[in-house]
């Protein structure tokens, strides 16, 4: 029996650590020196290696649990001894080790193909009381179902919007004067400005659930990156730094030089490059599964997604984006396909992929940039991200707060927009 | 020890047997006329068991019965009107029409009660005997059950527990030869089920179930034994079911010869013959006529009685708000 402890694992200045991730399950074989558990010491992650070879017999500290330095995180046992132990002596298995058999009631179908609006009973009742037409509402939930918060958000917007002006949600787009980047304004008319930078192959529409969840809590600017959505293909060879320059220019053109940045995936890398450049004053930075924190990325996804021209070839890649496969309904696939129907757009993105992710590798690295930033920082990652490994969140310096969202894949802002919105607003608040 | 009925008691047993017989015959007619609901399980030919075995009991003693319990009800002191009205689903029935003929119960008379789960009367009486023993009383609990019920597991369990704890219970096995349509010989390898008593150290006796006096004597001995705290006894009363399993029984499986032989030994005839010298034919016939008239009047009154109105039973509601 050998205890896995936090002594000598970078914890000497700390009184306690928090377990971030177990890389082994009880019963798994481990070799001495192999990574078994990651702990967080005052916001810096530390990887702890197995002190001996054997079987991980026991996990004493669960993910999220705080444990004092010197405390026992787990136990490695001799496999032969494990087999010989009577059942009574075995430690009780902890919940997280067991197969997830808890099922929840299935969420209603997201496809409203029959024209019926999906809404919770409470949302229906309140909407009826307030004479609000449910079909005018957007669901903020991944379930696609209109909930109470959507009714409340709609009502709040209706009350605030001056009569002479159309609702913000429906306001005509402002074209940027910069490098022809397409910007869309949403949310409140004033207040803190949140700039949202989408991921590779996406566009500003991908923020819709998050925008709904944010409601009127901030003024939101959605950017279509070069070669995406309604923004033109970049001039010259695309690069993350080049994109950052385009975004800075577009924001300057709108008089926006003091913003809170949110970037997803490729957009996260662009946000980091923008922060590095100092071209714009950045109040806070929230990164969702960002690019630029390590070399790995699912290259097959990047290529396959960029090139897909049919539902059959697009669907498997879309499935890889999400933890919850039920999001990828036929309707979702066809809508995505429609948005990507332009061959020029697909070619541009293919070219972009080759430039930014050559040979399926992330060529640009911002980890040191991140460590130098002095603004409130949050890194949010879906526990089940299959595109960029969540462990890229580690080794990002002492200041970044890490949030791993259970039940989410590479699209946490779609799969859990409420939590993501709450975390973004926390970050915004921390900057004030 | 008193274990023989007086002449007065024998006349009363005769009267009650005629009450039961008339009730069964009238119920048969009413069923054919469509005035009853559901099946009715008649006990024609078995009256001597129910009436003879209960004749020595006090009101505070308990009787548990079966789906074929009219003789047990009448024997233990229930009135014919309350029984008939219950069977006809009337408000004036013993249970206000909620129970029906298989499940009549009247706690004040110690009839608790009819039971249509075959065998369930046996642990029911055993539990009452346990209650009596814990409280320290001298009452007894008596269960009626048939040769079909004797094949249930709870029969064996109950006899074992009753004997182990010397509970004041009397097991009256009303052996009428049939479990629904299946003859006893196809249900058990032994003809005399009372031999099983030996397996539980329970004194057992076989009696002629068509002779009310014989039933009385054997049961009275068992009752006295129970009151003295000496534990349970088993009385196997051999009798015969004359009218099929129920009014819905198509029949055809009971032999004509058997029926004729048992009809010749009808318990009312046996009782009449044994009393006629001591009491006189005239008096006995008068008793019988009065009994018939009592039943007829009770049934007429029951047919006139109001039907019950439905009310939700709050005490079994699943939410605390209803309490």
């Amino acid at each position: 029996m050998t205890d896995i402890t936090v002594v000598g694992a970078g914890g000497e200045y700390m009184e306690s650590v928090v377990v971030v991730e177990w890389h082994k399950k009880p019963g798994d074989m481990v070799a001495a020196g192999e990574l078994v558990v990651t702990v967080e010491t005052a916001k810096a992650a530390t990887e702890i290696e197995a002190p001996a070879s054997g079987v991980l017999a026991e996990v004493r500290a669960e993910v999220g649990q705080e444990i004092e330095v010197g405390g026992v995180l787990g136990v490695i046992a001799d496999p032969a001894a494990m087999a010989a132990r009577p059942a009574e002596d075995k430690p009780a298995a902890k919940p997280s080790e067991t197969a997830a058999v808890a099922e929840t009631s299935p969420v209603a179908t997201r496809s409203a193909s029959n024209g019926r609006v999906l809404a919770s009973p409470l949302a229906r009742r309140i909407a009826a009381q307030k004479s609000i037409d449910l079909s005018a509402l957007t669901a903020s939930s991944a379930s696609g179902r209109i909930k109470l918060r959507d009714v409340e958000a709609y009502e709040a917007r209706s009350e605030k919007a001056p009569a002479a002006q159309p609702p913000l949600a429906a306001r005509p787009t402002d074209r940027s004067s910069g490098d022809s980047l397409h910007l869309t304004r949403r949310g409140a008319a004033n207040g803190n400005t949140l700039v949202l930078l989408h991921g590779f192959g996406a566009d500003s529409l991908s923020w819709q659930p998050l925008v709904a969840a944010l409601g009127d809590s901030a003024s939101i600017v959605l950017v279509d990156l070069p070669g995406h959505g309604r923004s033109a293909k970049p001039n010259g060879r695309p690069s993350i730094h080049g994109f950052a320059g385009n975004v800075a220019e577009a924001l300057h053109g709108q008089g926006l030089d003091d913003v809170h940045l949110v970037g997803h995936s490729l957009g996260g890398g662009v946000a980091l490059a923008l922060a590095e450049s100092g071209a714009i004053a950045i109040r806070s930075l929230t990164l969702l599964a960002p690019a630029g924190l390590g070399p790995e990325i699912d290259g097959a996804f990047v290529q396959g997604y960029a090139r897909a021209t049919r539902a059959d070839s697009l669907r498997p890649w879309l499935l890889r984006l999400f933890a919850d496969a039920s999001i990828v309904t036929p309707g979702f696939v066809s809508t995505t396909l429609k948005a990507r129907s332009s061959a020029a757009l697909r070619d541009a993105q293919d070219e972009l992929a080759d430039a930014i992710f050559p040979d399926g590798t992330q060529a640009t690295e911002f980890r040191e940039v991140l460590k130098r930033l002095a603004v409130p920082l949050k890194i949010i990652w879906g526990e089940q991200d299959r595109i960029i490994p969540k462990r890229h969140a580690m080794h990002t310096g002492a200041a970044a707060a890490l949030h791993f969202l259970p039940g989410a894949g590479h699209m946490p802002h779609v799969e859990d927009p409420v939590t993501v919105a709450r975390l973004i607003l926390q970050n915004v608040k921390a900057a004030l | 020890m008193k274990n023989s009925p007086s002449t007065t008691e024998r006349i009363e047993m005769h009267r009650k047997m005629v009450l039961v017989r008339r009730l069964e015959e009238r119920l048969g007619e009413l069923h054919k006329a469509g005035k009853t609901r559901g099946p009715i399980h008649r006990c024609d030919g078995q009256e001597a068991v129910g009436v003879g075995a209960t004749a020595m009991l006090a009101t505070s003693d308990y009787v548990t019965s079966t789906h074929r319990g009219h003789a047990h009800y009448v024997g233990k002191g229930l009135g014919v009107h309350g029984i008939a009205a219950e069977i006809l689903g009337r408000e004036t029935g013993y249970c206000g029409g909620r129970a029906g003929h298989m499940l009549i119960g009247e706690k004040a008379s110690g009839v608790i009660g009819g039971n249509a789960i075959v065998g369930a009367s046996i642990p029911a009486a055993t539990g009452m005997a346990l209650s009596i023993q814990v409280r320290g009383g001298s009452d007894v609990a008596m269960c009626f059950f048939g040769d079909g019920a004797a094949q249930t597991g709870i029969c064996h369990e109950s006899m074992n527990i009753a004997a182990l704890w010397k509970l004041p219970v009397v097991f009256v096995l009303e052996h009428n030869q049939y479990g629904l349509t299946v003859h006893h010989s196809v249900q058990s390898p032994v003809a005399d089920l009372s031999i099983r008593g030996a397996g539980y150290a329970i004194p057992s006796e076989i009696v002629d179930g068509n002779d009310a006096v014989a039933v009385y004597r054997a049961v009275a001995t068992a009752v006295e034994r129970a009151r003295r705290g000496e534990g349970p006894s088993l009385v196997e009363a051999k009798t015969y079911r004359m009218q099929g399993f129920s009014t819905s029984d198509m029949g055809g499986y009971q032999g004509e010869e058997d029926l004729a032989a048992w009809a010749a030994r009808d318990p009312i005839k046996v009782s009449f013959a044994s009393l006629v010298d001591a009491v006189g034919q005239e008096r006995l016939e008068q008793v019988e006529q009065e009994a018939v008239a009592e039943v007829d009047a009770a049934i007429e009154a029951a047919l006139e009685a109001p039907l019950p109105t439905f009310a939700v039973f709050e005490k079994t509601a699943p939410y605390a708000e209803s309490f």
Partner: protein
Amino acid sequence: MAKLRYAEALNQALREEMQRDPSVFLFGEDIARYGGVFKVTRGLMDEFGEGRVRDTPISEQTLAAMAVTAAMTGTRPILEIMYADFMPLVLDALINQASIYEYLWNDVSMPFVLRTQGGGGAGAGAQHSKSLDSLVAHIPGLKVVAPVTPADAKGLLKTAIRDSQPVIFLEHKLLYNLRDDVPDDPDFTVEIGKARTVCEGADISIFATSRMVLESHKAAELLAADGISAEVIDLRSLRPLDLSAIKTSIAKTHHAVVVNEGWRFCGYAAELSATIMDHAFDDLDGPVARVTLPDMPVPYSEPLEMAVLPNAAKIADAARATLR
């Protein structure tokens, strides 16, 4: 107030009620001389004698039927059925006997208590690990309680013994060693039909029974780390159910998770879910989530058994899913 184990709290309740009322008596397998396989009845035969604390033959079906009629005739029997898995043996007594007489017959009461214990987690295998709550909670005329704290164990058992209706008292084998404050006051009782709020919350209500209350409380802590405020309600009384507590909580949180260690299909959690739909539909802002045992036997080997048992992580996952 003393710190007592759950089993000791039950023992104290039995002792106090037997001292208070001579018509209370106990019977069951191994309960008298040995003191019960879970030691709940320890020492009671010595104090009250063999007449009131009885070891029985292994005859559950008859014992339960006897409890019904003994209760109808002037005593207050308390029957121990060693494992909830044996409850199918006593169902005739409950379904065809106990449940009907109060309605059918005049002036009948049935003040008996049937104590049993269920649940998994102890490696007892497929015939000794079940939670068959729905089997008994299904039956009109019975009350069904499942305390999780030692204080509730004592208070509810005393109330159950004094009740005029049959009470099925569901214990859990993993709760007997739980130690907590228990009032000494012999008049301390806990009302049947009242739920207990374990912790208050604003975002989601978790309604749980028996040991699942403890797991739900842990789940609330996991959810708190995600910024989700969960309210945990220990139903305590499975029948009659504290409907107003359920409605009040859902009116506040608009989301519900129901947790029961029994099977899912036609299970107790299914009833809770349907009850919520019947009575709180228009307050729901998301689907009711159910966390239960899967519809299969409870396996023996530890990783297999742990895989089927509901736990805090599964409950938290269900809560997150329904909030999504």
